[in-house]
């Protein structure tokens, strides 16, 4: 299954083929068009991600990578003009950003924002409890929450002192990116979209982030890495690599495609954009 994700035949139980096939699908983007301030950035993106898979979307600056990530998360600055997005067969585009989050979408921001006055712990506990509430689970109190997050903090090298500071306040670039991964590990989304999580990181920080992402990999989850450089993909092995050029996916392939791009750049694909 992992070696041939395009296959729509599930190995094992086939109880009414269609139903089983759909359950394999985590995310389905169909002909997505989106604009910002009236100009169209995504010109019909089509993409399918199955459960348990890691996909990478690569592309030059201005190709629409971050736009895609933000549109999936429901950022109000973007207008979807055409197309459909299904999360486990559920229409995603009709949901508000917080509803999407509660359904299991997580966006690791490229530039995480600071929120003075609100501690990282309080923020994350509030978020987790909203999601737990939505899933019919009991809310965690401060003590239980703290016990639960301690392990995950160690995993991404986040010191307890950082945890009590205001959200991202005074964090270095690397600390902010690690904080994004930390939040992902705590909130346990179904689909994690990581927007240029590797940008601005040194090798050590990169390894920590990659570790965190790899540890998160599971059968019932999917990860979408949005990245400019191949470097991250040396540490996180993708199942599929897609190239986004001028708002369209022009080529898809296995992990070797990333190496090919590293060697040749994006120019050789420009013909495909039309």
């Amino acid at each position: 299954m992992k070696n041939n994700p395009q296959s729509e035949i599930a190995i094992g139980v086939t109880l009414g083929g269609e139903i089983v096939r759909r359950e394999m699908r985590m995310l389905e983007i169909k002909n997505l068009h989106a604009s910002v301030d009236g100009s169209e950035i995504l010109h019909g993106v089509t993409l399918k991600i199955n459960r348990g898979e890691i996909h990478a979307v690569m592309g030059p600056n201005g190709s629409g990578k971050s736009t895609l990530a933000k549109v999936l998360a429901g950022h109000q600055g973007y207008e979807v003009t055409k197309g459909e997005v299904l999360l486990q067969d559920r229409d995603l585009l009709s949901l508000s950003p917080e509803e999407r989050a509660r359904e299991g979408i997580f966006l690791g921001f490229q530039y995480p924002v600071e929120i003075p006055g609100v501690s990282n712990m309080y923020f994350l506990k509030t978020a987790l409890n909203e999601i737990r509430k939505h899933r019919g689970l009991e809310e965690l109190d401060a003590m239980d929450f703290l016990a639960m997050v301690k392990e995950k903090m160690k995993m991404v090298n986040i010191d307890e002192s950082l945890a009590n500071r205001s959200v991202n306040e005074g964090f270095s670039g690397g600390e902010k990116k690690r904080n994004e991964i930390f939040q992902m590990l705590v909130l346990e989304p179904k689909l994690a979209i990581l927007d240029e999580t590797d940008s601005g990181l040194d090798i050590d920080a990169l390894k920590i982030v990659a570790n965190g992402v790899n540890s998160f990999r599971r059968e019932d989850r999917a990860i979408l890495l949005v990245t400019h450089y191949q470097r991250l993909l040396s540490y996180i092995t993708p199942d599929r690599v897609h190239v986004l050029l001028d708002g369209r996916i022009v080529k898809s392939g296995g992990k070797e495609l990333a190496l090919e791009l590293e060697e040749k750049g994006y120019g050789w694909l420009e013909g495909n954009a039309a």
Partner: protein
Amino acid sequence: METSTTNIEELATREYKYGFVTQIESDLAPAGLNEDIVRLISSKKNEPEFMLEWRLKAFRHWLTMEEPKWANIHYPAIDYQAAHYYSAPKSNKGPMSLDEVDPELLKTYEKLGIPLREQAMLAGVAVDAVFDSVSVATTFKEKLGQLGIIFCSFSEAVLNHADLIRKYLGSVVPYTDNFFATLNSAVFSDGSFVYVPKGVRCPMELSTYFRINAEKTGQFERTLIIADEGSYVSYLEGCTAPMRDENQLHAAVVELIAHDNATIKYSTVQNWYPGDKEGKGGIYNFVTKRGKCLGVRSKISWTQVETGSAITWKYPSCILQGDNSVGEFYSVAVTNNYQQADTGTKMIHIGKNTRSTIVSKGISAGHGQNTYRGMVKILKGATGARNYSQCDSLLLGDKCGAHTFPYIEVKNSTARMEHEASISKIGEDQIFYCQQRGISAEAAVSMIVNGFCKEVFRELPMEFAVEAQKLLGVSLEGSVG
């Protein structure tokens, strides 16, 4: 009472649940302000001669004064002759216990959420409930009396503790002080009086609830709190007012005096009617509050959360006269819809090694205009004075405004001053970040605003802190966007 309750429930908006009028017969003085009215007020209260004289001096002085126009607020001219300056519920003989209080009045207090019976039994907070111009029930008087603490209505104090009134009234805010304080000195109705004797720590928070009820009655409370040597008192002031179409004037005067080693903590959670969404109606809150740190190592703290009134003009201040005295001011002021606020504080350093702290948080939303005006004055003899000022503004939306006018006057070179100011907006990206983690936009704003106000809320007595947070949530409803 049932009928009016039903009508009220139909009229009440989510934002303001205290919009109702009690159907009690009022003893209302004719409209207008002249010497006869002043005499009428004094005679209704059976005041001794010295009190009437003081009122008349103030009134005559008021006639020579001009309304101040320097504040950064705009309002239609007030017709002082159109208001009534005295209103008292007819059934008032001074009850000895709760059982003797007019049951209609008790029902009113229950609606306000301060059932006297409950408070008397559970909370342990002594309540001096002021109904329009006359104080009604004073609970726990006996308990406090055992410690020698006097907590009664101002009117009562004029009758029973005239010596203290004569000694301290006007010692912090003289009747000539400013236009509104002078007006208050002439026509003040009632308020609270507190005296804590030497070495006594008041065991409970003292509190007062106000209401402006009868039409066109401006309210002029007068409060005087005296903490004798080595004593401690914490006082809570919380206000509500019914929905009205005409603007109502509220010009109170509060004087605090702290002797050697004494501490007075004065907390306010203000919930006056702010005017409707178009800015119509609402209370004009023009208040003079001042504390005098008379003795050495004395301390006065003002903590306030202001979310009501159409127009707010107040500067709780501290005169740091005693050596090593401390003055503090913690404030959260919210303006939404069309509210305007010009508030701040004055810290006047006179003695040696005095210290003042100012933390002011202004939140503007809708078309609200929030102005902070702070003055720190270090006089020549004030060696070793220290001041820390922090003035932060938060804007919600792009139609509101925040303005800061800090004044610093230093006449002694050993003074140390620190001033920090910041202005920020709740950015859309901050809200989106919260939403992307599963938190709704409203909850995000509330979380961020509470984080912004944390330093001030920390200073409030616990019961008030909870009320303040709720109030903030209600007053910022509909401001997200």
